[in-house]
């Protein structure tokens, strides 16, 4: 069977749902963060597939920006997690239920 756009979109959709499942079920902040990365990657895959099958490079440029913004987001988020860990000695969302430090 010839591999077309739908095949890539199915993989992307399944990957997105896996990321969502991880964000909802796992309680460790770092693993939740990795699942977020998984969801971003799923979106990237869909964009690249669209770009390829529509003969249009704009999708790839958007993926380029997404990767850059994701790198910035990861650095800020991990710094926040480290700062939080320093105060609370835990990276577990169930220990972080109050907003006041």
């Amino acid at each position, binding site marked *: 069977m010839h591999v*077309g756009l739908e095949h890539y979109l199915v993989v992307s959709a399944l990957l997105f749902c*896996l990321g969502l*499942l991880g964000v909802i079920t796992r309680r460790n902040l770092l693993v939740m963060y990795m699942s977020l990365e998984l969801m971003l990657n799923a979106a990237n895959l869909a964009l690249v597939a669209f*770009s390829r099958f529509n003969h249009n490079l704009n999708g790839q440029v958007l993926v380029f920006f997404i990767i*850059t913004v994701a790198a910035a987001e990861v650095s800020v988020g*991990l710094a926040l997690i480290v700062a939080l860990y320093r105060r609370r000695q835990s*990276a577990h969302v169930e220990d972080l239920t109050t907003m006041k430090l």
Partner: protein
Amino acid sequence: MPALPDILFYVFAYLTLLCGVLVVANPFSRNPVTSAMFLVLTILSMAGLFVLLHAFFLAAVQILVYAGAVMVLFLFVIMLLDLKEEERRRIKMFGLVGGLVSAGAIALILLKTLRAAGSGADAPGPSLEGNPVPLGKLLFTQYLLPFEVVSVLLLVAMVGVILLSKKDSK
């Protein structure tokens, strides 16, 4: 006899999904380091999918930025925080059921939509190569302003991270 790119697509797609499952729910280990390693594998096989889509430059960027920089950052933070007790925690039944139901529902909706949309796009004709030259031209002409804004964003993130990770000097 299917063509080689099709076989490679299935190999990389299964690898991506399998490693994705192992990131989220590894039955053997709850250690975040294992999750991070499988995330690296997911990203690498996704770079393989990018190559199959002729997005060569993006595949290289994916490996360099994600598997290189971002994952090293993750591993540094995992090593910095001592997460021994993670293994003893149990996954809450309520969260597990809720997560499975909601992720399954979204998967159902997405797949039904894809089925309803049908096969609109056929096989790519005159191929669009994702090599750096046209991509760079587009990036520095049409997308020049977003490009510069992203550089400012990176600067802001850098300053913010330094500020956040500094010891309190009260």
